């Protein structure tokens, strides 16, 4: 990406220095999310990458760090009526309403393709009740080729369940515990940003047995057409994503990374390697690319490339060495 090139050129002296100091080895991008090993920290976010196959002609799927598929529920869901998306300033609102094929058809219809990839596949799950979450987890536990589960407790679009799980620490803990008991797969809990204190939520799911937290899901937003005097989404409200929300996401990731000992996965508006680096420096062990997949299908791959260049220019051999190295003091 253009912006990236610019960023790395900003300090030309430094660049040259680093270039001279470093032998031309390929930096090691591997990261670890609990027991889940990734070849690089760049994953694709749930709901923005379909079931991966949609991107097969545009992205080398085997170069990604991980793929998180569209949220799966126990039964197929039709989702919300259209219109479901609207563009906003540097962002978009969506009210897809968690349309998905359901866990059974996911396993029979989508997993065979996904299994052939060398990239770890994480399944994002959602339910209307604690029991539903457990049941999906049990079904996926038995399925071959799944690297981890990501529990979506934060989707703002479904009236029943969704919001409460993600905003009440006790509820979040309950879901996490229940899913924990239903599977041996690594468990990532995905947090909602629509809370007063994200750290409280992160601690609650940490205590309840999560192996990692990912954040943020979308902020709740709205858009109105003044001519028709109607909401632009049939669902009235929707989830805001894209570069617009990056500053909020980064702040929350930084707060959570300082407060919990779990690995943190950063999500929100990531488009370039520079964006990804902000999250890694703030303490994220990996990142997810979401909305950017829509406007720049090459974003995730470019970020992997950009991280490599950055490490070379900064004279770092291993990506893990830069995680959480943000300097906030006056040193």
């Amino acid at each position, binding site marked *: 990406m253009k912006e990236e090139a610019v960023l790395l050129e900003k300090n030309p002296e430094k660049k040259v220095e680093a270039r001279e100091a470093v032998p031309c080895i390929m930096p090691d991008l591997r990261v670890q999310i609990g027991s889940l090993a990734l070849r690089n920290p760049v994953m694709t976010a749930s709901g923005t990458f379909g079931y991966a196959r*949609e991107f097969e002609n545009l992205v080398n799927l085997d170069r990604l760090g991980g793929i998180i598929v569209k949220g799966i529920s126990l039964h197929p869901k039709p*989702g919300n009526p*259209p219109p*479901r998306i609207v*563009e906003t300033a540097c962002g978009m609102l969506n009210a897809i309403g968690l349309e998905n094929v359901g866990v059974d058809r996911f396993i029979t219809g989508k997993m065979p393709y996904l299994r052939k990839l060398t990239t770890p596949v994480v399944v994002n799950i959602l339910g209307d009740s604690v029991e539903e979450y457990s049941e999906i987890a049990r079904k996926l536990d038995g399925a071959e080729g799944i690297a981890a589960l990501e529990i979506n407790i934060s989707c703002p679009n479904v009236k029943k369940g969704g919001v409460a799980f993600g905003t009440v620490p006790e509820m979040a803990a309950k879901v996490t515990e229940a899913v924990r008991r239903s599977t041996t797969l690594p468990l990532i809990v995905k947090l909602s940003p629509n809370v007063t204190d994200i750290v409280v939520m992160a601690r609650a799911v940490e205590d309840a047995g999560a192996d990692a937290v990912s954040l943020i899901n979308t902020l709740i937003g709205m858009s109105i057409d003044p001519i028709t005097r109607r909401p632009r989404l049939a669902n009235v409200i929707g989830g805001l994503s894209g570069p617009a929300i990056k500053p909020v996401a980064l702040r929350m990731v930084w707060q959570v990374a300082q407060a919990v000992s779990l690995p943190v996965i950063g999500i929100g508006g990531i488009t370039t390697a520079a964006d990804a680096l902000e999250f890694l420096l703030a303490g994220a062990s990996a990142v997810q690319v979401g909305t950017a*997949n*829509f*406007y720049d299908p090459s974003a995730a791959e470019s970020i992997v490339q950009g991280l490599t260049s950055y490490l070379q220019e900064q004279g770092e051999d291993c990506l893990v060495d830069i995680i959480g190295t943000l300097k906030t003091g006056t040193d």
Partner: protein
Amino acid sequence: MSEFQQKCSIIGRDRLAPDVFRLTLQAPKIAAEAQPGQFVMVRVIDGLDPLLRRPFSIHRSCADGSISLLFKVLGKGTAMLARRCVGDELDLVGPLGNGFDFSDERPVCLIGGGMGIAPLLFLAEQLHSTGRATEKDHILLGARTKDELTPLADEFSALGYTVQLATDDGSIGRKGFIPDLLGFVLPTVEQVYTCGPHLMMENVVRQCQQAEVHCQVSLETHMACGIGACLGCTVNGKRGLVRVCQQGPVFNADHLEWSLV
């Protein structure tokens, strides 16, 4: 079929009407695969506002590796696109969508309103170049005024088609609504292809269904990804929601829940 993300140089830019532009782009990979009715997703600017790509029908695809887009300035994306110059590069993803089915059933009638004419020129050219065009084919085109219509109408005529026109202001062709012309034509054709404003297509579909003539419609909805991943572009089909970008944009009119589209 396969799609590509490609930076494409603008090699031609024409202003057909005050707010109607035609861009020609060097897009060899996309041109090689493109089928009539397919579209591309265009990033109109390097910055992040507007954020999303804009969908445009492939208006023409040439053997020299170029494709053309025909568009009207409606909002900020199209306004920015209109300001791009020859020599600029645009980032395109395409060709996308299913395209028209034009394997059999002739004679045909192509009905385009406004920018809905864009994909129909490609279709007409393809019918012509694959020897599928017949003397009984009809082209009905409508727009607000003459200047939006004349250069396009001439291009259809040059292929040998009979072209009938309608404009809102009567500045060329019949004054009024393009589907009003359909009554005379329908009994003579086997297949209708239509793209244009919603009201127009609704009317065309109704007439076709009454006359039991097959009708393919090309739909427009708001799109984020254009490749079936975001689930943002769905409309109501007879058997549940369908994704316009992937299962369309061309649909057999009978398969849509037209009142809810």
